[in-house]
């Protein structure tokens, strides 16, 4: 016993150091996989208050650019409104008919805290469960996809962006004859470029072909832009392409985003839960 106390006395500095390191590293490792304790993130009340004040000061910095983007988007949708179109044949353009049913709704949100040069970048949005946000919903902006909701508290939520290590969004490389499916990843180097894995090298990929979401898992609708292929290279020893893409969105200036709510998601998951396990 006395030996043990002597040992603890001698190494107490290192022991305290080890305990503190283990606490910090456990926090780091567990958080990356699943959010357990939301108090120690920007989603708690005290930190969010300061970040809101900071955002109130800095949100005007890119105001003119954001406004012109929103105006362009308005024009884009306005052009597609049926009442602004010339009707070639009557009774063809209808909005609420029995053929089309609304599957996705969108919740507008504002990014109040963001980073782009960490290994894993999370954005904080000013909407939460009070507005109907849930974990796993998709987030996109006007130019392209942003990420997936990682945690939602009552009034705020945390987005795991496409600038994280294992974001794994289903994407398609849009080609002339066919679409190539793959998974989106990020290598942590540059916020303007992402990567797609799992593309077989039996087809040649044209540079600057469009990359869009596939919409398989019900998080994103089909066809939200992700980026364009900027670089391809065969991986040695494997029948795969290494594909680098240039993101469509500029994540440094991101301010206004939309959260996607899939109205059919429950139906889809309930149906897919019926797939037998052993097949």
């Amino acid at each position: 016993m006395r030996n043990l106390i002597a040992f603890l006395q001698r190494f107490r500095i290192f022991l305290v150091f080890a305990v503190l390191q283990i606490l910090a590293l456990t926090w780091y490792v567990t958080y990356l996989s699943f959010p357990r304790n939301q108090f120690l993130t920007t989603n708690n009340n005290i930190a969010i208050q300061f970040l809101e004040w900071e955002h109130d000061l800095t949100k005007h910095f890119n105001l003119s650019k954001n406004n012109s983007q929103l105006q362009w988007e308005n024009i884009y949708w306005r052009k597609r409104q049926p009442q602004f179109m010339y009707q070639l044949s009557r009774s063809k353009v209808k909005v609420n008919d029995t053929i089309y049913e609304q599957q996705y709704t969108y919740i507008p949100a504002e990014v109040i805290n963001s980073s782009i040069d960490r290994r894993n970048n999370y954005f904080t949005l000013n909407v939460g469960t009070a507005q109907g946000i849930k974990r796993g919903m998709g987030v996109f902006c006007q130019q392209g996809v942003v990420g997936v909701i990682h945690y939602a508290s009552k009034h705020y939520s945390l987005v795991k962006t496409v600038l994280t290590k294992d974001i794994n969004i289903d994407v398609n490389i849009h080609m002339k004859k066919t679409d190539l499916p793959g998974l989106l990843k990020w290598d942590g180097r540059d916020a303007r470029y992402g990567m797609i894995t799992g593309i077989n090298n039996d087809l040649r990929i044209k540079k600057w072909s469009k990359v869009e979401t596939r919409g398989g898992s019900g998080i994103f609708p089909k066809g939200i832009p992700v980026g364009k292929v900027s670089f391809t290279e065969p991986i040695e020893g494997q029948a795969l392409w290494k594909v680098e893409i240039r993101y469509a969105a500029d994540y440094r200036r991101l301010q206004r985003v939309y959260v996607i709510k899939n109205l059919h998601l429950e139906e889809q998951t309930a149906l897919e839960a019926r797939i037998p396990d052993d097949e």
Partner: protein
Amino acid sequence: MNVVYKHIIRFVVFAFLQALVFNQLNIGFGIHLMIQPLFIMLLPFELTVIPMMGIAFLMGLVIDIFSNTYGLNTSSLVLMAYLRPIVFKFYGPREGYDPLKEPTSQDMGSNWFTVVYSILLGLHTFWFFLLEIFEIGRLGFILQKTLLSGGLSFLLALLIQSFILNSKQKK
């Protein structure tokens, strides 16, 4: 008592400057400015290791909460606090440090400050990016980030020190 208040104020100022100003600057090239190591560096000489690691843990916790880094800053600040007495002992004067002096560049000389602070800041930054990227195959990228961020953070630390010096002279 005066010293305690001074360091509490410094804690708050450094934590908020880091969380609300320097974390929000996206410079590019993987540069991440860090001023919280300077706070650990400027703690008084006579403070022992265990309380210092406690303070470093708290400081890291505050910054991690604000920047969604989940323990990265905490871990690297605790490492820096653990290494500080070892590096200080190695570069210290033979008769030990004068407890009336502070570990700043104007009290201890800019040579001493440059050597000691660049070693500690380098280790802190390297540990931070090593944990953040966590891939041995990309050591070059980790080193690049460490050198760029560490160099700029060091210049920033000199700038902040000159502010502290000026405010002292005015008194």
